[in-house]
């Protein structure tokens, strides 16, 4: 019964804290890593942190609308990944590396 105890003591706050930690990690990755692929992975992490908080809210407020939102986010994430990877491939073809600094050549 201990396990169910633990489960029952986990509240909304815990989910949100985990979500915040994940979001901060993702953001740190976006801001600090120079590799485009890693940055995209970090963005996925941030999106999923948000998804987690959505689901948590949905469960604790007995409202399923937020779960619908999650599906949308996942769809967008898939599309974004497709575009992002295409960009990464283009950059790689041109410079043999996927470092973000090559994007600075696009500066007007």
């Amino acid at each position, binding site marked *: 019964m201990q396990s169910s105890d633990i489960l029952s003591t986990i509240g909304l706050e815990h989910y949100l804290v985990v979500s915040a930690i994940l979001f901060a990690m993702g953001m740190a990755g976006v801001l600090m890593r120079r590799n485009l692929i890693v940055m995209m992975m970090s963005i996925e992490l941030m999106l999923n942190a948000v998804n987690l908080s959505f689901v948590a809210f949905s469960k604790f407020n007995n409202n399923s609308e937020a779960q619908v939102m999650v599906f949308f986010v996942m769809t967008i994430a898939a599309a974004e990944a497709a575009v992002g990877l295409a960009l990464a491939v283009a950059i790689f073809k041109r410079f043999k590396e996927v470092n973000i600094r090559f994007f*600075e050549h696009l500066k007007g």
Partner: protein
Amino acid sequence: MNHQTLIAILLLSPLIGFLINGLRYKSTNYVIAGTVATLAVATSFVCAIMLFLGLVDAPVESRRLTADFFNWIAVDNFKINAGFVVDQISAIMILIITGVGSLIHLFSIGYMHHDKGVTKYFAYLNLFVFNMLILVLGDSLLTMFVGWEGVGLCSYLLIGFWFSDSAKAAAGMKAFITNRIGDGAFLLGMFILFMTFGTLNMYELNALAPTTVEASWLGAVTLGTLLLFVGATGKSAQIPLYVWLPDAMAGPTPVSALIHAATMVTAGVYMIIRLNPLFIAAPNTMMVIATIGAATAVLAATIGLTQYDIKKVLAYSTVSQLGYMFLAVGVGAFGAGMMHLMTHAFFKALMFLGSGSVIHGMHEEQDIRKMGGLKKYMPITHATFFMGWLAIIGFPLFSGFFSKDEILWKAFSSPRGHELFWVAGVIGAVLTAFYMTRLMALTFWGQSRVDKNVHPHESTALMTVPLIILAILSVVGGFVGVPHVIGQYLGHIPNFWEHWLEPVIKAIPANEMTAFHSENHEALEWSLMGTSVSLAMISALTAYMFYIVKPGASEKFKKLLGPIYNLVNNKYFVDEMYFAGIINPIIRQSKNLWQYVDVNFIDKMTYWTSDVVNGGGKVVRSFQTGNMQQYAMYIGVGLVIVLSFVLMR
């Protein structure tokens, strides 16, 4: 054709001529340019005659043909139509403008045919006629003002027509700027009249003019009419703004004849006659007008005595004759002023064109000291000029005699007149007779002083025919307004002029009439006339003695008068006084403003503004690195700041 169509054609025909010549201004084909321009004005002349005949046919009380073409300005209850009116006064004006104008256009073909800018010249001339017609036909002061400014512009363009000579370009600017001063006063006068009467339509103004005269100097009507008169002194070259007209002789001679003698410079007189009920209500204004007119008539005539440039003599003569017209309207003799306007248009246009013929025949020589004896070489020019001379010195039964004597008699006898005005007028007439005889003697009579290399020749028919027509008009023009005292001895010639103008000229209020004015003064009128005419004839004979019989006498006389001659010869140093008293101080102050205020404040302020923008740009530019992660960080930091604001509250 109904009269609206006629008025439209009258106005548009010179404008079309202007557009045709203006759009092909580089052409040097004087035949096409001259024909188009002359036909345009001649068409207007035909319309003017038809309108005039229409007026004559109409019964006296409905002699007013109006044409409202469109609504020009409508702001609340302030409405101005593009309305044009042909009545007794403007009908005479359009006949003069288009009639004399056609002759001068014709003359110009001969005079300007060698000029490279001939097409441009004719375009300007047509534009001038168009604007002048707007000036005289407009039914409100504002419409008149449009023409008023338009003729000023054309005058500027034509005075400075040979602008590659900087003196001539400067003369154009002088005319324009001097006129601006008058125009400013004209505008102020319009404001005052609009504030007082709530309309700018001249017929409504005349109807609203107070019937009791305004004794105060600061009354609205007095102030308004005085300011309008200041506008007139600019356009019509009266003291103190007359200085531009003698310089305006820098333009081609036919321009001097059309604009600076026959038409534009009479605009001020015309405006006063047009608004005569208003001016009658302001006796103080009328006194000022008569005084300025008399003073100008004498002053300009004295300067005319000393000039050696044939056109300058005529220019000062014009200023002097315009003074007569203002003297006439100032004493309430509006009909006589209008009549002198017309006869002057004939004989002064004739004399200017004659001088143009002389200048042309002498190969651009204008100094009368280098002429003399031209009668032999230019018989037609001399004969026509002779007629003009008889007219301007007031030789009995020539046109100038009737109009000038009517003015002198009215200056003496009108309730608003004074004996002194008559004396000034007679002095002016005596001086006029002297300087015009001097001009005739030095130019056409006596020994030839022509340079051996110059071979004077008579002008072509294109130039002599207008001269002959104008000479005929100068001789017979006066018979439209023969005064009663003379008319009764010439087979009872009625005074057409007075009958014609009577409905549009308001009489001076009856309470100003004393017993003297209502009595019949035939003997007095005859004796005054005899005095002025005989004095003028004696003066002309003296001039003949001076310059023909004893050619050395004038030099001796000059030495005798010494400083006075010097003063008059230098035009009383009026230009110099204007420079010392007004123009130079303004230039000095402008320089101060430039060197202190502009350099230290206005320039500094703009530099400072540009520095702020530059520096700000530099700072903001450093954020714009192109590094995507930096941008993402800005978003993140911004988000944190906004969220903390929201959550902390």
